[in-house]
């Protein structure tokens, strides 16, 4: 997707991210820019999660979101979840990835809740309806 011009605020932020099987991954909560050789800011990653969403919201609300996000990190990793722009297949009304959700490294809370709570309840793997 290199070199395409998009309005980052309008065309990227807060869009739904879907994986290669159209499974929801999360929202584009923030963007990571890197300066290229010509000194231009280029989007290199999509950032996900309350740790990056909070600062964007600002104020008490933002601090609160970050606080909750910290407590909900099962692995204690201080880095926000990150998806490289190279893994993006398509920008549209949703952002579609080339890779499956398991390979994005963004699902720490989902995995933790799955193994600690949901899979322990009877019938958690019954057929999708």
């Amino acid at each position, binding site marked *: 997707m290199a070199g395409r011009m998009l309005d980052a605020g309008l065309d990227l932020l807060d869009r739904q991210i879907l994986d290669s099987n159209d499974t929801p991954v999360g929202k584009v909560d923030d963007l990571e820019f890197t300066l290229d050789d010509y000194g231009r800011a280029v989007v290199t990653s999509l950032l996900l999660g309350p740790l990056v969403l909070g600062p964007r919201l600002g104020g008490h609300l933002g601090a609160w979101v970050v606080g909750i996000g910290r407590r909900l990190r099962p692995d204690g990793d201080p880095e926000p979840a990150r998806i490289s722009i190279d893994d993006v297949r398509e920008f549209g009304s949703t952002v579609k990835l080339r890779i499956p959700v398991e390979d994005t490294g963004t699902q720490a809370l989902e995995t933790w809740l799955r193994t600690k709570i949901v899979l322990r*309840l009877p019938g*958690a793997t019954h057929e999708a309806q």
Partner: protein
Amino acid sequence: MKRLLGVTLGILTAIGGFVDIGDLVANSLTGARFGMSLAWVVIVGVIGIIVFAEMAGRVATVSQRPVFDLVRERLGARTALVNLGASFFVNFLTLAAELGGVALALQLATSVNYLLWVPIVAFLLWVVIWHWKFETMERVYGLLGLALLGFIVALWKLGPDWSTLFSNATHPSVPHGEGHPTWFYYAIALFGAAMTPYEVFFFSSGAVEEKWTTKDLMTSRLNVYIGFPLGAVLSLSIMACSAVVFQPHGIQVDHLGQVGLPVSIALGKLGLAAILLGFFAATFGAAIETSMSAGYTIAQYFGWAWGKLVRPAQAARYHTVVLLTLFAATGLALSTIDPVKVTEYSIVLSAAALPLTYFPILVVANDRQFMGSHVNSKFTNGIALIYLLIILVVSVATIPLMLATKAGM
């Protein structure tokens, strides 16, 4: 033939599904206190929910994106989060009210105190949400809810003076001894009961989950256009029953048992049994919808996997939110707080919170980039804008009226 059956079932489901604890309480209470003088609000409310549900269903079908996904994209992350907080809170109150309603219906049937039923009902709710198919849930509770049609039979059996009822409804005036603020406060309660936001969260999420196409759009429109008005007729008959039996004696309705009393007077034990079944089905069905809506709103804001089309293990965060919300609502219902009072607050606050979801849907329904040729027609927009105005006025007036009337005292 199969299609016809689908449409018929859908319409029947919509009638049963239209009425929940809010409608039961609001219609019966206003009927007893104000006669038919607030019947016009039910009509205004049902046209409103038809416009809103049709737009939300169309937006979800065409864009394949449910309400809160679009709310965040349209309003921005911050405003949408505040919106999420308010919507989630109102939905939570509604869930607690429905939970109390189911337990009260069981108390009326068994004489076992409702507080003992609350945890059992909550557990049953979770089992149904966890194990049943979407369509099965909708149909079973919608169809059982048709038992509420007993109110129409009861009204006919009570043999009221139809022309007086009709003229009271068509020439609304504030009954003697009641103030205008109280009258308008209960008008808002009725409006909120007819236009509860969770109906729209549930409807639009269902459309996305069941992967509706434009072909399904016709079926859903028929359900909405026929089922909801018939549901409103049911609401009006509850109001009329109450107006006939209670108003002449100045009796106020403040228990769910009183809501069904006109039916047992008119139809005896069998009628009462049918009505209790209807109470149970209508409130249980609504409790399912509000539980799932709690998960929908949060999961859709944060972009998580949600719903019943994936295995529960694939939507762990969604199911955890549903489970925790259900726990908290059970706690509130068990706090011995009066379920009828919780219901009153939940419908009034629903009315106040309506613009939060109505406005973004109206904007997206007019966005050609999303909707293509399925954008709102001029006619739809005309009505939708009138309702935007009504909803805004109601929203602004709610809290002052609540304070001025001490919540309708």
